């Protein structure tokens, strides 16, 4: 499989993704899966300009990403799939059924979310969706950068001691 990382990150494309993960994975393409971004030419241009020239970027809403996943996965180049929220990744994983692991990379504080890690805050609904993914056999870990330890979901949900 050419896709080396399925990441949830509310900043979508940013330094940690493009450089922090993109460089060590030698990523040559990225699939940004987001219903809002996929529907706006301006948003697409905004993110297109944020990726380095050697990296191709595809935009898709969740339904399109489910449909086209096999094509992304058969691309011989290393790639990264990214969603901005858990709900989108949940729908993608449920639709594709071939995704074995999901990375929690940055889900920051918003109303209703409870802090689990420095960079992971979850609502009860989001927690439930992650538990469901894990119960379905998907490995869910939190890891902001490659040099950090991948923390299993059980550890994430326990939260971090202050």
């Amino acid at each position, binding site marked *: 499989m050419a896709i080396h990382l399925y990441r949830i990150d*509310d*900043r*979508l*494309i*940013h*330094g940690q*993704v*493009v*450089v922090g993960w993109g460089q060590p994975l030698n990523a040559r393409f990225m699939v940004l899966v987001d219903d809002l971004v996929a529907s706006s030419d*301006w948003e697409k241009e*905004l*993110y297109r*300009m*944020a*990726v*380095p020239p050697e990296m191709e970027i595809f935009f898709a809403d969740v339904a399109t990403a489910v449909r086209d996943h096999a094509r992304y996965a058969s691309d011989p180049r290393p790639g990264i799939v990214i969603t901005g929220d858990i709900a989108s990744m949940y729908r993608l994983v449920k639709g594709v059924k071939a995704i074995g692991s999901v990375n929690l990379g940055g889900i*920051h*504080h*918003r109303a209703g979310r409870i802090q689990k890690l*420095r*960079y992971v805050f979850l609502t009860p609904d989001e927690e439930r969706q992650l538990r469901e993914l894990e119960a379905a056999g998907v490995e869910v870990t939190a890891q902001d950068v490659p040099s950090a330890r991948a923390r299993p979901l059980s550890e994430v949900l326990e939260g971090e001691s202050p």
Partner: protein
Amino acid sequence: MNEEQGGGPGNPRAIVVGHGEFAGGLVSAVGQICGMADKLVVLSMMGMTPEDIESTIRGELDRTGARVIFTDLPAGSATIAARRIVKEDPGIVLVSGVNLATLLDFVFSTAASPTEAARAAAERGKASLIVVGR
């Protein structure tokens, strides 16, 4: 967030924002070299959502009257947020990939507009990147 007061009327002012302590480090270096850190506002975006980053930058632009935003990486979330701001207010200028030479040129600039000051500073910053050795 940190801003030292100073900067007389008509002097360029800018917001510097980046990953980790990048902005604070750069502005501290400006202060050490020429004592003009007061022309620059430091923002850190650690732990912020994209919306928080954007609203924090907007708030500082309003508060200080700054018209220039310096960011570190073109792919950074601060740059993305700043580009959203520039889209709504083309009078704001964004320079990404900022380095110390850029900021030093900017704080000394006597250009008539923030745009001119930022463009000239960006050129100086590019020219400061040199490679020595085989």
